[in-house]
């Protein structure tokens, strides 16, 4: 024991890392840990609202993980997550689950901001993704092969995209498969001849922060959060919190908070459309 002072200082600092004792809970005495897993589109919203919620209820910890909407639904069912996050409406096979919509979003096509192409028709998009059109000069762009960016299976953004364009997953000829929205944005931003599709909220957020991507209109309608909010954008989808069976009070409190008007600013900051009134 050559340096008893140092050693005891180390042990004391370790002890300070322990659980932060009896926190002052605000009136309703909410404490505990909530786990949310699933969609990478919903995750940033859940994270931001979660931080504010933790600030209001110091005994609460909100843990958010991504993994895709299918993971959110599977985890909600199996109980691995208290709340599953899904960026699409529930399918008929998921009628055993309850969906609570916390925001609206859309799926938009993105290309690099240096790409001169301003819009693509639905048929052109179908053809590109099925491998029919392979060069940008066939759609009014430069002479370069198109790098098609697709989303991995199990992602709701993929399913919404396939449903709108009437495509079969097996028939898609892609060059790169990405996981979450951020990876999609990074891939398109890093390749001037690529095309992909991501959540409009994520794309606007990135473009707003200087990432070199731009959203293309679909069927003549600009891919903006406003158009999603007004319902004029054709590829819209709800951002849902999904629960299975009985919901414990902490989870219910968090869900209600996410749907309240107190967090509208957080939702709009992330370029999503807030829910008008709790249904």
């Amino acid at each position, binding site marked *: 024991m050559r340096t008893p002072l140092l050693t005891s200082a180390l042990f004391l600092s370790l002890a300070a890392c322990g659980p932060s004792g009896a926190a002052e809970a605000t009136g309703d005495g909410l404490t505990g840990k909530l786990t949310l897993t699933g969609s990478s589109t919903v995750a940033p919203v859940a994270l931001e609202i979660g931080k504010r919620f933790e600030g209001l209820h110091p005994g609460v910890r909100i843990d958010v993980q991504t993994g895709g909407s*299918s993971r959110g639904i599977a985890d909600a069912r199996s109980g691995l997550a208290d709340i599953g996050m899904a960026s699409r409406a529930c399918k008929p096979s998921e009628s055993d689950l309850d969906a609570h919509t916390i925001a609206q979003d859309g799926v938009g096509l993105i290309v690099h901001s240096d790409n001169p192409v301003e819009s693509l028709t639905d048929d052109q998009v179908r053809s590109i993704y099925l491998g029919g059109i392979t060069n940008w000069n066939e759609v009014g762009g430069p002479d370069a092969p198109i790098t098609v960016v697709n989303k991995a299976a199990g992602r709701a953004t993929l399913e919404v995209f396939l449903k709108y364009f009437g495509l079969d997953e097996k028939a898609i000829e*892609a*060059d790169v498969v990405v996981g979450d929205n951020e990876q999609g944005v990074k891939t398109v931003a890093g390749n001037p001849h690529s095309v992909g599709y991501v959540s409009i909220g994520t794309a606007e957020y990135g473009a707003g922060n200087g990432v070199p991507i731009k959203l293309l209109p679909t069927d003549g309608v600009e891919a903006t959060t406003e158009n999603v909010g007004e319902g004029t954008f054709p590829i819209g989808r709800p951002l849902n919190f999904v629960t299975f069976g009985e919901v414990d009070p902490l989870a219910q409190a968090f869900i209600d908070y996410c749907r309240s008007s107190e967090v509208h600013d957080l939702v709009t900051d992330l370029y999503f459309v807030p829910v008008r009134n709790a249904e």
Partner: protein
Amino acid sequence: MPRQRADRILVWSLRATSALAGLLVLMILGFLVFESLDGVRRVGAPRFLSDPGWHPNQGDGSSEFSLLPMIVATLTTTLGAILLAGPIGILAAVYCRFYASERVSKLFRRLIELLAGIPSVVYGFWGLVTLVPLIREIAPPGASLAAGVLVLFLMIVPTVALLAFAALKDVPKQHLEGAAALSLSRWSTLRQVVFPSAASGLGIALLLGTMRALGETMAVLMVCGNIARVPESLFDPVRTLTANIALELGYATADHRSVLFVSGLALMIMVVGLVVVQDRLQRRASLG
């Protein structure tokens, strides 16, 4: 405590801990086999190679479970990486041990140790941001088998070099002195005395490098493109077994999940196979 008793306690504790380590490996193997059984039974083993593609999640029963594209991807990325990293790593070790001055050798080794410590996700990130656009200049889309091979090569060359250096250092001094007494040239000494003597150690260096490349997940997930199709050229995107498991296990249910465990089992079998081969070679080397 009398020495006899202390020795016995030590021997038994050592037996217990090594049994525990061995048991862990067997448990993992058993768990993989158990989770794969369902898949093998319901899907049928031949389909893992004969199905037209990898589309495991079709709700209407038309799922396809071919693991062939992923197996090809894993094997080719690993093979490419070790073909590059093996010679370069070993030659770097030879340089450090026999040709460089003590100071340069030490500096070089510190640099390699630093490289060996960089987390794989950093290699993947660098690959995505720097290497993939470079490859894209040659052949779009950039995220490809070639990118995977290069990133894996960078990751395993420090491992191979450091282990090879340790093996070369273990060559008994008498061998080197004997070669000098016979006035063998430096290269002859290396070829006829050092390499045969260090063969098993060099083999282990190559083996561990290969195993690291086989098991790598994050880096290949970020630079290989993740398209589950058998590559037709070096610049086609691929998806390795490890990347496949990482992308899909989070949400896979029933058959899909079971087949992912089958792919995990396939990886484990590859590793076991490598270890067995290395063991056989080593035994032959020590007998001959």
